[in-house]
């Protein structure tokens, strides 16, 4: 952010005033953050340890400790299975969406006519894909590619994969159109990133006799790698906040259920949040850009230099001390 690192100095009057104005500009956000994110977050954390009953007089909180969390894992029938299903589906769907979005954006970026029309089509889902619309379409069976035989796929996969994974993959094919529909924003992100790549890189590669295939692997992909991470994370978050997601429905139903209530639902939401974070972290670890070899070497070299300097200084100091001593003894 602040690229010009100045020598540390006491901040001047004018600069301080600037700072205050800056705070003033972001003040609404700070207030909103405290009111609508931080406060509810602490509340929710607290709720998870209580059993909450709604009475006409108001909420009655009874301390139950970890019982809510234990109940979720031990007594609830739906939650663990739903959670496992969600995690599996997400892990399967994310690569599909990201790769698909990448392919589409590459196609859209090539020199073609009617680019506008194709763009229009591929961004369309961003506009109309809302929960109930999706639900209606899936209900009517408009979510599968018409002549795809998923039963066959299931039978084939079931032969050599455990039932649950085979089912998840079949599910993926079953809702292929929905999955493709979810990649609108991702296409947008990739397209913007690809268009920003310096054209002269490709020209240079062409002079060296590269093919398009090589250009993709050696130029396009490394350049947009940070974008892949961003897209993957966005996809995970999008899929987890999606209304089609069974867990969300489960949490909401728990919220208004008399026997379970807010406390139980809060505990569920926290469990869910942890799983989502784990998945995000997993994706991030898998895709995070490694520093390149040159940067690493440079850093190592710098470290070496510093070490040398330090040893030099040490030697000098030692020498000085020795001289001092010698002088003293000679005197």
């Amino acid at each position, binding site marked *: 952010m602040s690229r010009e690192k100045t020598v540390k100095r006491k901040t001047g009057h004018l600069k301080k005033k600037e700072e205050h104005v800056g705070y003033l500009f972001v003040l609404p*956000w700070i207030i909103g953050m405290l009111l609508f994110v931080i406060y509810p977050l602490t509340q929710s954390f607290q709720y998870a340890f209580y059993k909450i009953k709604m009475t006409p007089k108001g909420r009655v909180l009874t301390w139950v400790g970890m019982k809510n969390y234990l109940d979720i894992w031990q007594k609830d029938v739906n939650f663990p299975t739903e959670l496992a299903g969600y995690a599996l589906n997400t892990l399967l769907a994310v690569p599909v969406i990201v790769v698909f979005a990448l392919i589409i954006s590459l196609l859209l970026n090539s020199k073609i006519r009617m680019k506008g029309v194709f763009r229009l089509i591929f961004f369309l889902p961003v506009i109309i894909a809302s929960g109930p619309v999706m639900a209606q379409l899936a209900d009517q069976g408009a979510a599968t590619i018409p002549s795809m035989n998923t039963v066959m796929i299931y039978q084939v996969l079931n032969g050599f994969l455990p039932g649950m994974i085979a089912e998840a993959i079949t599910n993926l094919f079953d809702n292929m159109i929905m999955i493709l529909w979810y990649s609108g924003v991702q296409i947008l992100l990739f397209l913007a990133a690809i268009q920003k790549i310096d054209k002269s890189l490709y020209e240079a590669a062409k002079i060296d006799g590269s093919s398009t295939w090589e250009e993709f692997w050696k130029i396009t992909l490394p350049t947009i790698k940070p974008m892949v991470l961003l897209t993957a994370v966005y996809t995970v978050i999008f899929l987890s906040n999606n209304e089609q997601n069974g867990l969300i429905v489960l949490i*909401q139903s728990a919220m208004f259920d008399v026997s379970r209530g807010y406390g139980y639902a809060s505990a569920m939401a926290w469990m869910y949040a942890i799983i989502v974070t784990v998945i995000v972290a997993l994706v991030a670890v898998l895709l995070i850009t490694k520093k390149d070899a040159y940067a690493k070497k440079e850093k190592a070299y710098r470290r070496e230099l510093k070490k040398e300097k330090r040893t030099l200084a040490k030697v000098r100091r030692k020498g000085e001390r020795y001289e001092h001593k010698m002088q003293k003894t000679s005197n």
Partner: protein
Amino acid sequence: MNIRCKKPQISRDKVKKFFLGSKDKQGFGKMTIIYALLICIGFVYLYPLLYMISRSFMPLDDLLDTSVDWIPSTFYIKNYVNAAKSMNFWKTFGQSVIIAGLPTLLNVVVCSIIGYGFARYNFRGKKIMLGILIFSFILPAQVTMMPNYVWYSDLKILNSLNAFILPAALGQGLKSQIFILIFYNFFRQVPQALIEASKIDGAGHFKSFVKIALPSAAPAILVVFLFSIVWYWNESYLTQLYVCGAVSKSDWSTLVVSLKNFADSYTTQASVTGSGMVSLNESIKMSGTMLSILPLLIMYFVLQRQFVESLDRTGITGE
């Protein structure tokens, strides 16, 4: 594959060049593959929409008749009439516009101010704040949803439009974090010299924002406006919870929410009016779905050119 060339000799090299292309010209074969792929995937994309349109015009007989696949025998408008009646279309449409529109306007105004604050000024704790901003985007909404529900009902803003307006006014609306980041990225590109010049000419901090930074941010504003209105329009879950009322119904409703409860409301409506309405079938459901997305579709087709262009210019990617 028949290639009819005027020239008598067709060398192998030439054929290869024609299909695969040379270094500076795309080959015919390659282009065909690209177009074929795009058209196929485009069809897959459009398939649900086409299906919806085709189904929504079918009378009951066509639905049962297996020989009718795509094109209905008659364009049966009555589906739409019935669906609109059951959704109470005009009233719900008006409410949808308000519910999506007001928070969107606030989003644009507030997020631009906040984004400008982050981009233009350096202050202590800025990096931490940006970190929190991103964190709050990653945080699943479910964690804060429940306490927010309770908190809103304590604030007496539940079951009214205020439940959307207040957070939006404080930069915590639906996906406001993304919008703040978009503005942040955009305002960082505005040359600092311009703003300094305006300062020398005597403009205050706020005035230089309104007069210099904001007019140059038109593409960002358009993108934020469109995305915000689309996301608010399509949000059925939170709308139902906060504005329409999950337990006690308020008289607010949006088209998307009423689509969610379409089957129930249609049957009650049909039983009230009596013989006038056909019982619920697939086509009517599809017409209802169509009605709920039609306004957005129209808006998209009208604004698409500006939309795509400004997407290119906002740098939505945000390094």
